[in-house]
Structure formats: structure tokens, C-alpha cells
């Protein structure tokens, strides 16, 4: 099986799509919830509790959003783009506060 046929094989695409939603979604939700907690100025236990609640809502939303996108290619690009943006913002704010 060549790379080309593999990359268009439906099972491979579905697996990739699921990985994209789960791994990409996890990374983005983690970053988003950290950012939100930071922005609200929460620390210690309240921050921990806040992140626990926000994370799962965002994660669920991102998984559904990712699967709702009408094409595989668009879904990968959007998820990667979202991660790039949120992590860039997070790292930038970490740099400022450090």
C-alpha cells in the first residue's frame, strides 16, 4: 500500500480524524482553560476547580465542533490553527508574567 492510497483510505482518515479531535481537542481545551483561569485571576484551589469544570465543557465542544466540520482537510487545519493560536497566546502571557 503506497502512502497515497493509505492517505485516502477511509479507515485511516477516520482514525486520523478521531486522533485530531481527541488529541488536538485535549491540548486546545487545556490551554484555553488555563488561559481563562489566568485571565480571571484565579489561583490555587479555585483555579483548579474552575479549570476542571471549564476543561470538560470546552473539550466536549471542540470534539463536536471538530467532527461537525464538513471535510477532513478543513478539520485538521482548523484544529491545528486553533492550537497554534491559543498556545501562542498562552506562552506569550507566560513570558510577560515571568
Amino acid at each position, binding site marked *: 500500500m503506497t502512502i497515497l492510497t493509505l492517505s485516502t483510505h477511509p479507515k485511516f482518515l477516520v482514525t486520523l480524524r478521531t486522533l485530531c479531535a481527541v488529541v488536538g481537542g485535549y491540548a486546545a481545551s487545556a490551554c484555553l482553560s488555563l488561559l481563562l483561569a489566568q485571565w480571571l485571576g484565579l489561583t490555587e*484551589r479555585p483555579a483548579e*476547580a474552575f*479549570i*476542571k469544570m471549564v476543561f470538560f465543557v470546552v473539550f466536549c465542544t471542540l470534539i*463536536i465542533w471538530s*467532527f*461537525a466540520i464538513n471535510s477532513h482537510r478543513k478539520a485538521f487545519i482548523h484544529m491545528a490553527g486553533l492550537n497554534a493560536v491559543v498556545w501562542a497566546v498562552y506562552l506569550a502571557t507566560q513570558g510577560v508574567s515571568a
Partner: protein
Amino acid sequence: MTGSLRQSMTWLHTWSSITAGWILFAIFLTGTLSFFRNEISYWMQPELHQSVPNEQSVIVAYDYLTEHAAQANEWQISLPDARKNTLDLSWTTPGEARERRRGPRVQLDASTGEPLEARQTEGGNFLYRFHFELYGMPREVARWLVGIVSMMMFVGIISGVIMHRKIFADFFMFRPGKKLLSWIDGHAISAVLALPFHIMITFSGLILLGNTLMPWNGEGHHGGPRDRGAGGGDRPAAVEVAKDFDDNPPFDKMFRHFEQQWQVPVDTLSISKPGTNKVTYTLGGGNRTELSAGRGGETSFTFDGNGEQISTRPANSEENTAQAVYNYFDMLHQARFADTPTRWLLFFAGILGTIMVGTGSVLWAVKRSKQQMGQFGFELIRGLNVGTIAGLMTACGSYFWANRLLSAELASRSGWEINIFFIVWAMGIVGGLIWRDRKGWLVQLSLAGTLFTLLPILDSITSSTSVFFALNNADWMRLSFDISCLLIAAVLWLSVYYLAVQKKGRRGRNVPASPAPKRKVKPLKTAGGEA
């Protein structure tokens, strides 16, 4: 995925749920039973059934402690209440080794004061632990597994709502008689009727597993280690103190004061420095006024030796909103606030959730039976459906039977009860894989139905007191367990009846019983429309 939004959501709903379906069914069922954890544990310790609480129970406890723990510096008395029929006493004695976190404890018959030796059992705690830590695997691995399937459940619920075209119209529609449609109705009704509960219980379950699923969100990641409060020093050395227990404490006066104030009975009493002139009595009860701090939402009163109130410890409350909301979810999930009607309501909502998961898995197979009959994946799922759903019901029934039939003196008997649970379940799964059709369902459901129907009789025969004794003394903890068994049996027999009637109807209409010809597996590209 690549179709319309509804098609994508249908795909997501189907595959997110079916892959987690069996473990979710087990979690939902054992979790629902955990709402009655105390009642189950009580039922599983028939040695406690003779205890009948009365007005004098507090005196019984006091007399026992003056006799057996006169030198203790603090006594804790947990009085019988709506979810407990015995007296639970513990005390701390000065000079005891610090590592021994709890002092001696004893469980008494609430009317005679006789110490009760209950058989060794995990009781309801096994079901409770199983629903988030499974069994026989490292705790962290199990929590990850439960967390992942809970997340799949959460995604399944939300995508299920989105895919549902006419959620309100369908809610009022019932189409009995049509085979496929009535499975869908069963699934949709159990889902929609208790939808807020399903969302709440799944979400709160997730956040309770948050520490496992988000290792980066632990202690010390948000501004230094948290303050855990100062650790207590060593206990004072043992000094023999002269004690005087001649006067009866003014229990009547204190209890009346507390109960008039809160309109709830006193259920905990702690006595500090008993038998001295510095004695104080702290009374607590089910007067929770505050949920935001999690536990400790109750107010207690402290009285001096003459029964005059000297202080009040008000309910804790949480000032931080995020933390308070988190605590609300925590309390909701564990039903710590629930009185009897609320507990039953939560129990029924949990049963609906269990039915939702079960019918969902069955629906998957029913929908595909025509096209995929004979294919390996389909047959595997069909077999696992029988074994995990009907098999688990039989396993739960066997767990309760084993509790009463295994000798009370058997070494490691609580381990054996659990072994029997898993052996029966494994047999159910093997049986389900061999007999995957209607017959398999009928046999396993009838077996579970028989076990549950006969449980009240077994209870009556093998307990220290008969069921009539429980009726006479309004022992609602034990009676509600027996009634629940009959309710579960009724549900099981109804399913048996439904399946049997369906089989007859099917034969009457002369539908060919042979499987449809095998078809090639549909490529997943169009999977959106497949479900």
C-alpha cells in the same frame, strides 16, 4: 464528518457510545445502586437487622460508654437515623499511639445495647468503588478508563441531542408495536425524560475524575502549595482522671432545644471530657443549610454539663464562586444532600440512564441485524450485549445471594462474594457470545429475574429476623431493598415477556428466520448516514 451536521452527529453519537457502551452500562448500573449504598450494606449484614431504634437509644449508648470507655477523653455517638438502625460508638483515649487514627469503635443494638458482630462483607461499597475504580487493576489505570468512557458518554449525550431532529415532537410520541421504532422510543424516552440528570451526572463524574484526567492541573500549579491546615500535635499522655457518672446528662433538654430549632432529629452526639465537670455535649443533625462548601454544611450546637447552649458551629460556606460551583456538582453527584424522596428520584433517573445505555447498545444491533448478520464484528457486539447487560444483572443478583449463602465465618468471605460476582458475569459473557439470539436474552434475563424475585424470601430465611419482623418494626432500610428487588424483578420479567411475545408474533407473521446474505462492509466514508 463529511455529510450534513446531523449525519456527522449521528455518526459521532453512534460510535462514541457503542464502543464505550458495555462499560458505561456497568458504571451506570453500579453507580445508580450506590445511591443506596448504606441500605445495601445494611441488608448485606443481617446480623444488624435485630436492632430496633427507640427513644432510649441515646441512654443505651451512654450506659455502654460509661461502662467500657470511662477514661476516654471524647466519645462519639452516631445515633440511628433514616439510613441507619444501629448505634455506632467510638472514643479516643489519651496516650494512644498517634498512628492509630481512629480509636476503638463498636456497633450496638439500638435497644438492648448488645454489641453486634456483622459478617465480613464489602456490601454496597463494592458496587460504589466499582463504578469509578472498577476492580482488580491499578487505581489510576481504572480511573483513566472510567474517565475516558465518561467523556465518550458526555460527547454521546450532546451529539445525541444535536442529532435529534424533533426532540420535542418525538418526546410526545409513542409507537408501540413497531419493533424498530419502539426500541428507538425506549432509548429516546429514557434519554430525554432524565436528560438534565444524565448531563449533570456525567459532567460531575468527569470533574470528580479531573485530578486523574488532568495531571497538569494538580497541586502547586497555580501559585504554590495549598495550605492543608496545621497538623495536630501528639495526644496528651495518659493520666488517670477521677470520673463521676452518677448524674444522668440532661439529654431531654438538649435534644428538645436542638430539635425545636431545626425541626430535624439529632443524629450525632459527641461528648468531650465525659464524667468531669468540664463536660460539653455537641449535637448535630441533618440540618444542612449550605452546599457551597461541600461537606460541613450542617450547624451544630454545643451545650455545657447543665444542658445550657454555650456555642454554635455554623455551617461552612465557600466564598469563591468557582470553588462553590465545583462543590455543588460534587454534592449533586454524591447526593449528599438528598432526603428519601430525592434519593429515590435520583435512583429512578439513574435507572433511566442505565436503560438508555442498554437500549442504545441493543438498538445498534437491531438496526444492523438485516445487513450485517453473520459478520464477525456485528456478532461480537450482539453477544457482548447479552453478556454485559443481562449478565451483569445476573451477577448483581448472585452477589446478593452469595452474601447470604456463604458461611458467615468463611475466611476472606467478602473476597468470595466479589469473586462470585465476577465469575457469574464472566459466565454470562461467555454464554452471551455462544447464544447471541433471543434465546440467549430470554435465558439470562429469566435467570436474573428469578434471582431478584426470590431475594426477599432468601432475606427472610437467612436473616436473624424475618421480613415480618422488619414490617412490624418499620425497618424501611431493609424493606426498601426487598421492594427494589421486586421492582427490578418486575422490569426483568417485563423484558422477558416482551421478548417472548415478539418471538411469537414474528413466528406468526412467518418472517424468515435465516440471516440475510452477507454483504461487503460499507466503507466508512459514508458512515454519517450509516447509523
